[in-house]
């Protein structure tokens, strides 16, 4: 049996109420009143499609052995690097083996579902047993546009494999069509679109029925055979669209437009994860990814699904949120408003590529060392043990901190240090299993920091060196939020 063996998701903590956008930009484009409802998820200033991919994948890998992953497909239309494989960066951050297969799937909103089919094809062979597929997007709508309202940020990850399958893969059907609804050429930041009704009626409403018809015909199914249908259609009229496709309201998986927004290539897989969270053994789920054609995939949920209910997933991330009540802050976070960064923001120390390569997972996966003589974890890697009582030489083993929790030993909020969201918060983190690191603290506010506060690690963008074309990523501390509270 092949199929999905695990799932995970990520939605950034900040939510921007669309009324906040409309209050700032509605004067410019009154027509956006129609889309100015609900809220959208917005990446923090130190997040992008890469960091969200690592977060969703970490959620997905909960309880799984990272050494058993044989491949990673990363899917997005907003990958940070055009040249330098993004999946390779993601793979290093997830501490995967180096003898694995990686690829970036990009340029289309259907890249998530296309990669999922490619992954399922791969695990049919003998070389690959487990492959992680992650779809992530942080698309930017131009200020004043409808896309600014509808686009949201998020990511979803699935592991495809042969053992302990939670949703068996039953088949797929794909279509390719050069339908130019959304376009963006090299060097452009904002996608172009075309008249909305044309996109809906000639795009979604023709391609999706063809997909479903193709799949049903291929596998001899009818619309009533699905417990859940995941249609990656980012409109408010999803239910009506599905009704026209012959589905009952109860079959329709919500597209989270009102809570997260259109997450582009991640939308289909995020909706699929949300469906799996509620699915029962025996349920048949139809997943339709859309974009320049589309992909329809058919899954049947197994008993194994009960074993992985501990993901934070979509539900858990929807529950953790903070209102971003300042449109200008949103513009600065997304680098849409030139602000006076001062000499400390201008004078970026040169990022040296030979260093990032040599340090490898020290930087990417927070890999330090542990002294085999006294057991002390330490970071970065040391040759001579840091423990004053030990001092053993060259008796170290690799030790990862990324999955360890700790407590704030001391902290500050620094108004002198440059930050896109001052004050810059950082402190000493004492790890519960030993070791101390100086780390930035994110996704919180100074007022809520306390000595002794429990934290976990999160992968974030540390700085950008535009002169040398470098996005530098590293780990930060984030307060542990009880999602059950």
């Amino acid at each position, binding site marked *: 049996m092949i199929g999905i063996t695990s799932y995970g998701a990520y939605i950034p903590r900040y939510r921007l109420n669309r009324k906040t956008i409309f209050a700032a930009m509605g004067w410019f484009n009154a027509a956006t009143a129609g889309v100015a409802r609900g809220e959208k998820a917005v990446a923090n200033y130190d997040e992008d499609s890469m960091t969200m991919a690592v977060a969703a994948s970490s959620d997905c890998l909960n309880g799984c052995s990272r050494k058993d992953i044989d491949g990673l497909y990363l899917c997005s239309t907003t990958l940070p690097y055009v040249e330098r494989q993004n999946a390779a960066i993601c793979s290093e951050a997830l501490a995967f083996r180096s003898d694995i297969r990686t690829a970036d799937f990009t340029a289309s909103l259907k890249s998530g579902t296309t990669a999922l089919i490619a992954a399922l094809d791969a695990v049919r062979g003998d070389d690959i047993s487990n492959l992680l597929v992650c779809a992530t997007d942080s698309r930017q709508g131009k200020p004043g546009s409808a896309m600014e309202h509808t686009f949201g940020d998020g990511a979803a990850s699935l592991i495809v494999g042969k053992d302990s399958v939670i949703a068996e893969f039953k088949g797929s059907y794909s279509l390719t069509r050069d339908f130019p609804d959304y376009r963006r050429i090299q060097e452009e930041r904002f996608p172009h679109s075309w008249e909305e009704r044309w996109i809906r009626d000639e795009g979604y409403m023709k391609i999706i029925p063809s997909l479903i018809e193709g799949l049903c015909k291929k596998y001899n199914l009818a619309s009533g055979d699905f417990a859940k249908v995941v249609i990656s259609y980012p409109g408010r009229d999803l239910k009506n669209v599905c009704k026209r496709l012959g589905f009952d309201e109860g079959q329709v998986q919500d597209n989270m437009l009102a809570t997260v927004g259109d997450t582009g290539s991640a939308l289909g897989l995020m909706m699929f994860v949300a469906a799996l969270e509620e699915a029962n053994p025996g349920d048949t789920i139809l997943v339709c990814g859309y974009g320049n054609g589309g992909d329809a995939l058919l899954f049947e949920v197994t008993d194994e699904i009960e074993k992985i209910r501990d993901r934070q997933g979509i539900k858990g991330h929807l529950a953790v949120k903070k209102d971003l009540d300042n449109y200008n802050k949103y513009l600065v976070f997304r680098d849409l408003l030139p602000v006076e960064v001062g000499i400390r923001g201008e004078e970026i*120390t040169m990022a040296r590529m030979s*260093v990032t390569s040599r340090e490898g997972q020290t930087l990417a996966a927070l890999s330090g060392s542990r002294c085999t003589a006294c057991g002390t974890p330490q970071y*970065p890697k*040391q040759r001579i043990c*840091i423990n004053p009582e030990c001092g053993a030489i060259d008796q170290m083993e690799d030790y990862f901190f990324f999955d360890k929790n700790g407590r704030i030993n*001391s902290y500050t909020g620094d*108004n002198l240090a440059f930050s896109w969201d001052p004050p810059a918060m950082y402190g000493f983190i004492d790890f519960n299993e030993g070791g101390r690191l*100086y780390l930035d603290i994110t996704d919180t506010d100074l007022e809520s920091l306390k000595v002794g506060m429990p934290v976990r690690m999160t992968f974030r963008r540390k700085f950008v060196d535009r002169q040398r074309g470098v996005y530098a990523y*590293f780990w930060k501390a984030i307060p542990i939020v009880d999602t059950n509270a």
Partner: protein
Amino acid sequence: MATGIKNKVAIIGMGCTRFGELWDKSAQDLMVDAFKEAIEDGGVDPKDIGAAWFGSCFDEVNVGKGAIPLARALKLPNIPVTRVENFCTTGTEALRGACYAVASGACDVALALGAEKLKDTGYGGLPDFGTMLGTENLFYTPNLTAPGMFGMVANAYFEKYGLSRDEGKRVLSRISYKSHQNGAMNPRAHLRRAPSMDVLINAPIVADPLGLFDCCGVSDGAAAAIVVPADKAKEYRPDPIYIKALQLSLTPATGIGHQSWDGIHFESTRIAGINAYKEAGIEKPREEVNLMEVHDCFSISELLTYESLQISPIGKARYDIEDGFYDLDGQVPCQSDGGLKCFGHPIGATGIRMAYEIYKQLQGKAEPSQRQLQNDPRLGLAHNHGGICGSLVASVAILGNEV
């Protein structure tokens, strides 16, 4: 068994420029001004100087690299000139080099001069640390600033000793209040206002919980010392000042990677203090030290230094601070010239500037005369530390006016 350098070396000439935002002074101007005062003070012929040590910290962005800037400015004639840099102990390191040279018999007259021209760097505060700990550091260390690191210490200290934020800020402001009172009287000090406690407490936050007045001035300036063997000192002047101890300690970054450091005391300062007291033969520092210049880059740094140097009991410095123990008329006056807080902090010059104040006070020549301590001081202590909290390099110098 090493015997240390107590009473082997004496300072016979010193100079110190005014510190401040000296937009119209070049590094050369500062070095020559400090040097001129020192040779005139000691009656030293520059040709007799056998070796020189030059201290400057942020080399590439201000004074220049190596020892050439000093040799060039002073036209030192083909003698050994060495540049030293060790964060905020840089000035004291220059003095240590000169003293060790004289103590060893390598030369008869040695010069230590520290200079820093921070106000041409373009930064308010110190320049960013960037790759200060090596090129890798850029990728994994937060974008630390000095007030940020000491702000962490302050928050941890408040937490440990149960000080509310308001109580803590009041204690810290009292430290700065005292230094402003002293600095206001000193014509060479950078900051010469004496704001009220309310102004100090309510100043804008630089790095939580430290406000503007918890932070020292970032200044231009230079200071110089000329040292000779102790037994030749009286040939130069009747009131030479003797080196009683010069100690340095650097923790091997234990505090930033190992949980054994509590984050609320300065280990390298503690060790340097113990070693300095031993070298100087001091058994009860609180009773025997008559004045101190400690590294008050931030008010919290001064507070923890009181404790780490065993002047105030651990966790109880606040009571001494509130009692005026460290005020100009207190038992152990501290920062009688205004300290880093008000006199200013051109890093390379700072350690020698502290020695300059102690030198003048021990000679009874502090200017203007209302700054002169009335406790008949015989032993003074200068302390510096710098680097990264958890991995600080610290120096302690003890000077005396009697052999």
